[in-house]
């Protein structure tokens, strides 16, 4: 296992090899690995010819990314990059897994594409044990996307702007669907700013604490005409809402399915009854529909699932009975004889190739938007602790022996440089805001690199500092790279 991470995390410590690159330099690293694989003759030329397109443009793009250049841009020694490239290219099977360190950047999609290029270059895709794999932070992140909680997709990733597909849904639902894609989360805030979005229905999110540049987010939410929040807990977003609908806990109070990172759809069953006054989430939505003049009958999880199966071909073969019998099924599963698929894209290896070629996309390195300069000389990155989940709406309601107070983590060298000891407070300022936090030393950090978690917004409002520079393709903000300044803070 190779771990690429600016910080030396527990995973990095466990790994065979750790590369400690600079925050936001992932494309430089990936492109240099690509170049090294090509010039060393380790590219899988047969696979490239057979199943991909755009290789020549990619080759020309990465030609510029010499190992020396990558060393300058990433900070990782050229030799270490070379060894990593060779190990990946020569591996019998290889996977690239990532999480938010790749996607919480202004060029998130480019970061992902740079990694996919490596998989195509070496043929580490469409085979057992190989592939590219975004790891999910919760049991059903994958399921959320699969079910159509994406601005331009309907259930089963069917494109909303495709009239034929849309017509299929309209027939089944006996309703018109807006023929134009919707907004993603960041775009919604821009729409609020323009006054185009005035009503918001929030299900199980806590944007007051989770949005980058929190001041702006709170101001815009406050400007809404009407906000409904449906959640398990009275979050800070719920506190601002006009109406709060108490939701149910998907993993223990309701019937239904979840889908894991490996695309495995599994049944969940209600293990405990709902607390008094908290209806099932489906029930809430059914009641809303009734008020809007649509009578859907009695809510029934299995009936809804069968509707999914009817409309989404990749879920068609997954009856409740089969899901139970097989302990879950990995999509796609087209009919009731289909066992599901352990890995995707095996078609790329079939002779002759069926379907479109997998495209290389040449992408260029761009440093983070929030530049370092004399006034803001330190790079702040954000992340999560093992015992906490995002804004803590769920995880901070129970005690954990691992949990510690919110701190800004610095390298011991920076502690010396700013003459602060552990537990002493510092003022942390970015171009957007300024907060106070006590210091903790983490030997896994280098000088110049600081870390804040996103969990403890009430003590340390990390998102007062972060930048809302958004990747236009994914709508994600660059939570991972903020330019900051640290000053010793003397309490009066």
């Amino acid at each position, binding site marked *: *296992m190779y771990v690429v991470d600016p910080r*030396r995390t*527990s995973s990095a410590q466990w790994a*065979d*090899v*750790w590369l*400690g690159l600079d925050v936001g330099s992932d494309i430089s690293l990936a492109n240099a690995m690509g170049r090294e694989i090509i010039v060393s003759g380790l590219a899988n030329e047969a696979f490239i010819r057979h199943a991909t397109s755009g290789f020549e443009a990619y080759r020309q793009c990465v030609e510029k990314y010499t190992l020396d250049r990558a060393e300058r841009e990433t900070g990782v020694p050229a030799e270490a990059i070379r060894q990593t490239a060779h190990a990946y290219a020569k591996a019998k099977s290889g996977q690239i897994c990532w999480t938010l360190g790749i996607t919480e950047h202004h060029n998130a999609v480019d970061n992902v594409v740079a990694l996919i290029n490596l998989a195509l270059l070496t043929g580490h895709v469409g085979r057992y044990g190989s592939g590219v794999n975004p790891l999910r932070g919760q049991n059903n992140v994958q399921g959320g996307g699969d079910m159509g909680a994406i601005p331009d997709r309907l259930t089963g990733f069917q494109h909303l702007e495709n009239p034929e597909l849309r017509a299929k849904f309209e027939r089944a639902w006996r309703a018109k669907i807006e023929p134009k894609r919707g907004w993603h989360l960041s775009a919604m805030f821009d729409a609020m700013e323009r006054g185009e979005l005035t009503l918001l229905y929030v299900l199980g999110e806590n944007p007051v604490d989770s949005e980058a540049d929190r001041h702006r987010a709170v101001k815009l939410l406050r400007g809404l005409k009407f906000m409904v929040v449906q959640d398990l807990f009275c979050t800070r977003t719920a506190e601002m809402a006009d109406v709060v609908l108490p939701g149910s806990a998907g993993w223990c109070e309701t019937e239904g399915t979840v889908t894991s990172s490996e695309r495995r759809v599994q049944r969940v069953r209600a293990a405990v009854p709902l607390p008094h006054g908290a209806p099932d989430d489906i029930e809430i939505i059914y009641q809303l529909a009734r008020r809007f003049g649509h009578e859907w009958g009695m809510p029934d999880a299995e009936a809804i699932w069968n509707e999914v199966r009817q409309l989404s071909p990749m879920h068609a073969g997954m009856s409740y009975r089969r899901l139970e019998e097989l302990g879950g099924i990995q999509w796609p599963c087209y009919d009731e004889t289909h066992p599901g698929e352990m890995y995707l894209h095996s078609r790329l290896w079939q002779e002759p190739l069926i379907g479109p070629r997998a495209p290389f996309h040449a992408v260029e390195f761009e440093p983070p938007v929030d530049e370092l300069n004399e006034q803001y000389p330190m790079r702040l990155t954000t992340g999560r*602790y*093992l015992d906490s989940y995002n804004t803590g709406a769920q995880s901070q309601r129970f005690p954990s022996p*691992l949990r510690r107070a919110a701190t800004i983590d610095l390298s011991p060298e920076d502690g010396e440089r700013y003459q602060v000891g552990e537990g002493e407070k510092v003022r942390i300022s970015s171009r957007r805001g300024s907060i106070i936090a006590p210091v903790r030393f983490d030997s896994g950090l280098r000088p110049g690199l600081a870390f804040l978690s996103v969990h403890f917004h009430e003590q340390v409002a990390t998102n007062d500092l972060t930048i809302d520079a958004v990747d236009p393709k994914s709508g994600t903000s660059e939570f991972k790279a903020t330019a900051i300044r640290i000053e010793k803070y003397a309490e009066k």
Partner: protein
Amino acid sequence: MDLHLTAAAASAEEQAAIDALLGEPESSWDGGARQIERDGRAVFGGGTARSRRHLLLPVLHAIQERIGWISPGALNYASVRLNVAPAEVHGVASFYGMFSLSPRPPVTAHVCDDIACMTRGAGALCAELEHKLGPAGSPSEGGQTIWQRSACLGLCERAPAALISAAGTTARERVVAPAATENLISTMQDAVNGRLPAEPDTLSTKLSVPQAGQAQLRLLRRAGQVDPSSIEDYLQRGGYEALRRSFELGAERVIQEVIDSKLLGRGGAAFPTGKKWEAVHLQRHLGYPHYVICNADESEPGTFKDRIVMEGDPFAVLEGMTIAGFAVGAQKGYVYVRGEYPLATERLNHAIRAARAQKLLGQDILGRGLRFDVELRRGAGAYICGEETALLNSIEGYRGEPRNKPPFPTQSGLFHLPTVVNNVETLINIPEIILGGGAAYARIGKGNSAGYRLFCVSGHVVRPGVYETPYGPTIRNVIDMAGGVGGTGRLQAVLLGGAAGSFVSPMELDTPLTFEGTRAIGATLGSGVVLLFDDSTDLQQVLLRIAAFFRDETCGQCVPCRVGSVRQEEVLQRLVRRQTIGSVAEERNTLQEIAQAMRDASICGLGQTASGAILSAMNRWSLFS
């Protein structure tokens, strides 16, 4: 990092003890001084560090031996050096009885108060020590020494026994057996003054093998007769002839001979040895490494035969292992020696070095292209590690908790690879089988109990020691062999098979000591323990000691055993003190129920047998009415 070390740091001496074993740290990430410029950008070698997890137990031994206890700082340093989470390091360190995680004086006397030593004055010895040194477990004035009560030290033929360990740059251990207050206290004082001799014991194997020199002996023919440190002596007395013969026969024939011999494992479980070997041998085509393990973690109270074999004839153990390695296609063997056996450890370590020097271990054994080497691992005071899967976990650097079976070690053993695990006594039978032929060996003995057997005769007997006989003699024959009943001369009870075995009454002495014979009276042969109690013995106290032993030694992994062993002792305590809850009959029922739950639901033999001896006694005698 989410998981954090406490602030405690290792002292220079603790670091030195660990570095002496592992070598100097390679970067600031594995314990070296922080050099962020060099180490902050790329680190290779994480996999190498991880792959050294199996060195955790040796590392803990190194700290304990140097300092006398294992501090939180030392645990942290071990955690960083081996890339093992601190909680896991603590979990392993706290698993073993020989490790102290709180400050302890450098000189410790472990004084056996277990059942065999009870028959030879351990009670009086401990009382005197309490009088002279203060209660067990509290450091002496000056803080240089401490004495502790200990479970069976495997020195039963020389009871009462004690083991002294002295930590330091040159750690020393010393067996004192038979122990008396004076020699114990003076040896402790020698240890404090650094005057302990390098040799851990004064043992003359002859004393422990009363039959020494008798012509009919096979397994014990060299013990007490040869210089155990001389490979030349061993070779002159037929040593390694069986290995040469094995090369002539080839692996398949060797295995066939062992199958034909009907040799059953001598560790207690009595599984056919040839079948184990065959199972591992048949996986040779799969291409991954195989292992041979000699289980020398002899810890059953009353058992000491393996110790005497290792001390008196260590090369025989290595030859048996080498033949096993040849037969099953293993290149690496481990001998896992009980931590309380310093002399056996030293003799085996010497034998391994001598065998390597003579090309009887190593890359090209006897010029026949065989690669096989043996590494010695020391246990650290955990009875459960004699259970073969617990032993595997222990070698791998985990808590010595048994694994679920199946898969059996022959399929998924050490490092989850095919592994043969054989007891010491089992292995020294191998040369006999190879040289005499399996069929001939099978004719020795009686019925399905083929071959020779070692018996550990101790307690109230005239000549305690290890005795060899072909299967067949009765309990009475074996007692006679050992000179008859000692003590008052009037026998009250015999314990067969140790704490996990069963009691028999004087009426049952004509039972043959065979698998079939003992089974017929509801007893077990186990590890060959024949422990005698005369009519002055308070059997209630013996049962209490056995119950305390299991309560102490349960690994705690399965609930029935963890809870049942405690409840069993509590019921016995109430019975002994006559403070029963309800009637005596009801308490006996409770014991039966606890025993049933432990037998049915424990995953390993410890829980399954923890009630056997106690119930066997209660069924034979009306002990508490």
